[in-house]
């Protein structure tokens, strides 16, 4: 289980001294429609990308804040996982991309009427960002603009 004590010494030390950031989202939103009528999009930090897209850049100090657009009809097994972190076990997501980008599950929920629809595009980032200034000032607003353009009603986010 992912408990603080299970992490390696390197990460425990880092987490003890790191100043975690937050971003003021107040007052927050409320759903205007029930889930069964809502269009859902996914934002994951699992560093998934399509073979025709550039991989994430592991060399950028503070982290790569770029994102990849993943269309709804993407064959999940064709996606690559390029996350630079060695803090987590990569084998689960490599076997089944649904663990981070659950498009198969969402399509099932759509056909059963649990959710209204699955958005046409989803967004993938590489989560190991220690200097998140541009994540909140640039990437977040850009991704939000796409989501609004698509008429997304709610967003699911997944870490690895």
């Amino acid at each position, binding site marked *: 289980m*992912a408990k603080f004590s299970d992490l390696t010494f390197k990460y425990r030390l880092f987490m003890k001294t790191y100043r975690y950031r937050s971003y003021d989202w107040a007052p927050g939103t409320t759903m205007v429609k029930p889930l069964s009528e809502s269009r859902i999009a996914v934002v994951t930090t699992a560093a998934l990308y399509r073979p025709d897209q550039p991989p994430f850049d592991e060399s950028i100090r503070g982290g790569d804040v770029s994102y990849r657009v993943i269309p709804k009809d993407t064959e999940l097994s064709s996606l690559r996982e390029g996350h630079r972190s060695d803090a987590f076990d990569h084998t689960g997501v490599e076997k089944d991309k649904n663990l981070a980008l659950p498009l198969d599950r969402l399509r099932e929920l759509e056909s059963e009427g649990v959710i209204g629809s699955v958005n046409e595009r989803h967004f993938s980032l590489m989560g190991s960002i220690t200097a998140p200034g541009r994540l*909140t000032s640039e990437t977040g607003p850009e991704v939000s603009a796409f989501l*609004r353009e698509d008429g997304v009603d709610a967003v699911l986010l997944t870490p690895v």
Partner: protein
Amino acid sequence: MCNQSVGLIQSVIEKQGIPTSSISLLREVTRKVHPPRSLFVDLPLGYPLGRPHDAEMQREILVATLRLLESDQPLPILEEYQVREFSLS
């Protein structure tokens, strides 16, 4: 850092007016970042939706995360998903 990155971009999207809900694998981190709605899932890092190819478990965690969107509790919400059993074998 994934849990902070999720919480931050989530907070930006929420601020832009779209309701958001996330999975957390590290409760301590999510508490500090305090995004609007999060489901803490006590599973190993790398397994936010549970076991590979276990559609039932994945669906349950996914639906539980989405249901937070319909909650009328005051924000922020940080709930815990009850993991019944988990092994990778």
